[in-house]
């Protein structure tokens, strides 16, 4: 665009009419809009619905959806182009600006990776991440505009869920627990801040979410450490507040649900999935992970172990908790409740309600009032879920201790991988349906560390997966929690894909666990279109550019873009 302007003064008028040169930023107030032409934050908008108002691709037209481009991304330290007989190859590609950061010694160079997060689509540019790596791609053809590489100190490299964006700045987390801010136009690092200590077992995967002038940042950890959520200043990177998800001091809320303060302070409840934000109440709502040690009660006592496996609502400006609802009281199966909560308004028992819904890893679905946290609906959406018997007075599943890990083995469902996991769900206000994966896997769970002190981390058990009664795409009626329809996937053990996208075109996009990207009819789950691109590793997304509705997704290290032809 700039080049065109330089060529001719006559074209200046055209240029200024289309003056949105690539690389523009995201103003915080733009994030308040429902999801439409761009994809400026992890879930597209704050509600977590992953429901796009775009309808060019719809039930009638989707048959004409086909490839616009594919782009393969190689993570790691760039090496000089190979030479042939001492000369560079004839068709040497133009050098992509490459920036290196990080505090590691530079001795770990991983040249393989997978895209398992959300891509930001802003102003004709896509911002894509893998652990330690980030790219800007031209959204029109997928070519790289820059590549940023972080030299790691270690930490679990399990995935990266993407960027947050505030004006022209990008924010990503690294496996060795830094928050890194980049300049979106150039990919150059602005600053990085340590957000946790990798030596304590912390590792960081979440996509930061920007709310006003807050960059909210979560962490993960498997050894017995406390979870927390932190808020940073987007300009300076200074810490604004830190909220611990387990009691850290005598008398803290929830302290009476642990046998000792020492147990609570090592109690887990990590914050590894980006939540949703309700501007009307200024509440940030997110789920927390499992208690530790995960599979043994030991010294944590028999009580609920707050605020593990809990949906928490925080005031964004103060970091103070407004309400909570525990979705897995006293978890014994590593059923993190770090799933994406979805905010929507709708009729419930004859009244308009402001609600939040979540389909938890433990096989249970919940609808709550999002202003007060009042419990409205609990249902067992994992058809063969068997680890609980009935509900607690608060509406959470009541754990059946006989389904904890035992020395002789207990057959429990779901597996520790869960009925669903990190994969984002979707919600369509048109159908009123909450869409989620549903895997009904079974494990034999053996207790291998019967020490009365309890084990540590995720240790002390051996889990043997012994089959599944089915893997589904399931559409849940938020008013009852009952499934309106279920579509069976052919790979009955694996989760269908990397998450879901619903659109105003009446479609639901997802991988199918068998190597296809599929468009389903959101009303009844009938498959309408597919393309075989390999295992879809993130949630499909959509945006509009040049009059085309693009549908994008990743399969491993490849980004794919589709438009109507």
């Amino acid at each position, binding site marked *: 665009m700039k080049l065109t302007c330089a060529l001719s003064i006559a074209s200046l008028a055209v240029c200024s009419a289309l003056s949105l040169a690539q690389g523009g930023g995201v103003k915080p107030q733009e994030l308040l809009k429902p999801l439409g032409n761009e994809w400026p934050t992890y879930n597209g908008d704050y509600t977590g619905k992953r429901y796009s108002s775009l309808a060019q691709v719809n039930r009638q037209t989707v048959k004409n959806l086909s490839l616009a481009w594919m782009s393969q991304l190689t993570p790691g330290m760039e090496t000089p182009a190979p030479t042939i007989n001492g000369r560079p190859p004839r068709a040497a590609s133009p050098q992509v600006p490459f920036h290196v950061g990080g505090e590691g010694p530079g001795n770990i160079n991983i040249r393989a990776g997978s895209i398992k997060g959300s891509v930001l689509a802003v102003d004709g540019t896509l911002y894509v991440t893998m652990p330690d790596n980030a790219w800007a791609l031209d959204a029109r053809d997928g070519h790289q505009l820059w590549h940023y590489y972080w030299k790691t100190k270690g930490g679990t490299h399990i995935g990266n869920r993407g960027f947050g964006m505030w004006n022209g700045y990008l924010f990503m987390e690294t496996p060795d627990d830094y928050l890194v801010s980049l300049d979106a136009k150039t990919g150059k690092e602005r600053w990085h801040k340590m957000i946790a200590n990798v030596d304590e077992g912390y590792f960081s995967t979440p996509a930061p979410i920007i709310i006003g002038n807050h960059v909210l940042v979560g962490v993960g950890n498997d050894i017995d*450490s406390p979870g927390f959520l932190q808020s940073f200043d987007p300009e300076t990177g200074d810490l604004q507040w830190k909220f611990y998800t387990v009691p850290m001091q005598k008398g803290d809320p929830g302290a009476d649900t642990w046998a000792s303060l020492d147990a609570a302070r090592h109690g887990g409840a990590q914050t590894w999935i980006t939540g949703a934000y309700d501007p009307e109440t200024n509440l940030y709502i997110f789920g927390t992970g499992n208690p530790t040690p995960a599979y043994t009660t030991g010294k944590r006592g028999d009580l609920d172990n707050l605020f593990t496996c809990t949906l928490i609502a925080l005031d964004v400006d103060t970091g103070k908790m407004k309400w909570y609802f525990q979705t897995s009281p006293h978890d014994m199966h590593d059923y993190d409740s770090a799933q994406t909560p979805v905010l929507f308004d709708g009729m419930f028992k004859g009244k308009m309600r402001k609600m939040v819904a979540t389909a938890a890893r433990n096989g249970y679905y919940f609808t709550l009032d999002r202003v007060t946290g009042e419990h409205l609906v609990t249902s067992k959406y994992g058809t063969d879920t068997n680890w609980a018997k009935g509900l607690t007075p608060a509406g959470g599943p009541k754990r059946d201790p006989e389904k904890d890990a035992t020395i*002789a083995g207990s057959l429990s469902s779901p597996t520790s991988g869960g009925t669903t996991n990190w994969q984002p769900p979707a919600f369509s206000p048109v159908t009123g349906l909450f869409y989620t994966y549903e895997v009904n896997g079974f494990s034999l769970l053996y207790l*291998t560390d019967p020490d009365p002190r309890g084990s540590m981390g995720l240790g002390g058990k051996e889990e043997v997966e012994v089959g599944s009664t089915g893997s589904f795409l399931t559409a849940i009626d938020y008013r009852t929690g009952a499934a309106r329809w279920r579509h069976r996937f*052919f790979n009955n053990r694996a989760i269908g894909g990397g998450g879901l996208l619903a659109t105003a075109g009446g479609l639901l996009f997802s991988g199918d666990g068998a190597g*296809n990207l599929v468009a389903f009819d959101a009303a009844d789950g009938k498959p309408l279109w597919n393309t075989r691109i390999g295992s879809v590793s993130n949630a499909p997304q959509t945006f509009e550019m040049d009059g085309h509705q693009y549908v994008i997704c990743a399969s491993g290290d490849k980004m794919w873009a589709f438009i109507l032809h």
Partner: protein
Amino acid sequence: MRHLHRYLAAGTASMVAVLTVLCCSPGLTVASAAGAQAPATSAFNQGEVRAAEDPAVVAHGKALYGINCQACHGSDLRGGDMGGPNLLRSQVALTDKHGELIVPIIQGARAAQGMPNLGLNDEDAGAVAAYVRSVISTIGGQGAPPGQKKVLDIVVGDATRGQTYFAAHCASCHSATGDLKGIATTFHDPVQLQSRWITGGAGSAQASTATKPTVDVTVAPGERVSGELVRIDDFLVTLRRSDGTERSFARKGTVPAVVVHDPMQAHREMLSHYTDGDIHDVTAYLVTLK
């Protein structure tokens, strides 16, 4: 916390061991390069390179730990009878590099919180710290405690009840004197045997073909193509015919008619019906089939 998708690249990362120079604060023992163990990556924290410890210092520290620390913190560092906390998950112990965090505590920095001054000099306290770090470096993946897994007896069921259950639910396909003869010899580990009979599948090599799904595709009225199922989704079914060649058919809804025969289906359907008691009884019976 376990994400469903496993970390792809950890095993293949080109990880170059760095030369580790042990730092020392004044007064602490310096490990000699000759006596140092190779730098170790800790299993629970992928990629982290931990400094090598001098075995002689670690051994000295271990002895001092037994004398001074074990009663409160336990012989395995996971907390003891006298109420000392688990050191393996202690943020101080996890982050200590060369005694800078642990030594002051041994010397009384936390006396107010109940941790007494043990009266060890810098060198001895540093040796205890080195021992603690050496145990921390053996923490397992996902924070599992160090140490060998104990072999536990998982056979707790009643073999007679198991035989009755077997007769009622398994005997239509299986026989203790036929396909399952000697099953407890093939799978001598009861944990392996128990998971294997629940999943189903080959007990021996000759049975393996009977466990693979087959498929019938009706391509025209009265015309059916059958074979071993290669793959199937909503849009395509691929089969392998008896002559070894593959053939694919596009699928659209119910056309063509596709019927999959999966010998393992019965095993999967049983999953939601077993009680743990049924399982343990059947295992107790099957371990007798040697």
